């Protein structure tokens, strides 16, 4: 994964993007250990999906 350097949105987008990826994978892990309901897992994953597709174009560069 490469990153852009000039966009003013780069740093916040990187933060949101990483949070979105965490929001995609950590809730299922929490569900595995019985710490979260499946409905909440699904909700967080969907919101994270939206956030990822907003943040990724501002952060990731196509080589």
């Amino acid at each position, binding site marked *: *994964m*490469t990153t852009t350097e000039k966009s003013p949105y780069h740093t916040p987008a990187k933060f949101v993007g990483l949070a*979105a*990826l965490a929001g*995609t*994978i950590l*809730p*299922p*892990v929490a*569900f*595995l*250990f*019985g710490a979260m309901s*499946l409905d909440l*897992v*699904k*909700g967080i*994953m*969907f919101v*994270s*999906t939206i956030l*990822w*597709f907003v943040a*990724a*174009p501002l952060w*990731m560069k*196509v*080589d």
Partner: protein
Amino acid sequence: MTAKDHGHAGHGMVDEVESPAVGSEYERERVPERALKGPSAFWGMYAGEHTAGTEFMIGPLFVKWGADAFSLIVGLLIGNLLAVLTWRYLTAPIACSERLTLYYKMEKIAGRGLVTVYNLANGLLFCFLAGSMITVSATAVGPFFPEGTIAMPTFSSTMPTGPAWIISCIAIGAAMTFVALKGYDFVALVGHYAAPWMFLIFLACAIVTLGKLGTTDVWALLTPPPGTKQSISFVGIVLFAWFCNAAMHIGMADLSVLRFARKPSAGWASAAGMFLGHYVAWICAALLLIYWVKERGVNPQEGKDPGTMVNDAVGWAGLVCVIIAGWTTANPTIYRAGLAFQGVLPALSRTGATLLAGAVCIAAGIFPAFAMRLLDFVGVYGTILAPVGGLIVVDHFLADRVGIERDPAAKSGVSFNMAVLVAWLVPVLIGLSMTAVSPVNPWGFEVPPWYLPLPCTIACGILYILLSKFAGGRAAAAA
């Protein structure tokens, strides 16, 4: 797979995805030094390209065929490693030495007329592959409607399941075709951005499934119940993983991509696609069906559609993943099929050719047979297209040693090198006649199609040497 899975599509080098078939940069010349790319460009590309919608089908199909845990965990590891080594030590060195597209290199060996035949075969196979991606994506439409509104296909479905299914496939296929008409830089970008998220969705599906099953013992889950008929062996799994992308590595289609690599070591980047998409993602997808078999009483021979399984595991994020995974790989495939058809029918406009390709893809997508027999299909795909790689290997490594002309069509100006045609078709026709997909099998035994790409490629190379020497001898005698 894919194709990559099988389909060779959806990667992130936007200048290159314009088309390896026709119309991309340096299409008829060596890639110049200034256009070469470092290895990082290829790692992301391979990771995105080989995590496609069809991965949701392949894992469950292994479960249907009774594959055991050792075959899935060790066999897939070995098969994917062999695929990576093929890319690294066969495809990439030729790509970095020649720096030409497969099509231009083929034209130099086989002649322009014969490349047109190859393009037609390629275009039709692309259509069926994109059709199976439309099928997978269409299964994600069902969960948005009340249960039973759209009858979903099962592993045994070959015909459309009803009007609602047909409408879903047409809607998704038409949207994909429309975007393909506009060019697919945008879709390539979406595929690039989606890749890391998509991989995590596959992983999330497996983790949630483990949570639902109340165990983390993946080995035990992947072990089929006693008495399960094993229709695919350890060797079969190894060969499937190795050759499901045979057209790309031994078939040399990835010359078009890797010709931009600074060094052959860029071939290692294929590991990202193989081990994320064709190892982790396949096993994750297999776990989805295992849950439905164990907890919901689904017959593994019938299976469950990917949309329903993914929605049940991770909800709408999963449905978005199924649609995007199918879309980002089917769309460039439709575009490339259009280009291939345009090569065969030059009078056809780009728009007309893409519409034709889109229509064929939609027709193929409506019939679930292609997606539900994906393992057979990718084997056939590799068996037909991989042997041309044998010609290129002979031309690149052996021609001088065995005393045949390099790039014979370019030197003689012929547009239809008959030695190539015979060397390509004879092994392919003999090979396919041994498979279950052949209407006529005179051999008395059947061979799974994914066993065939390597023997057919080797046979093609040997025949090409013999026929070229024979033709060269006759020409010398005539002179």
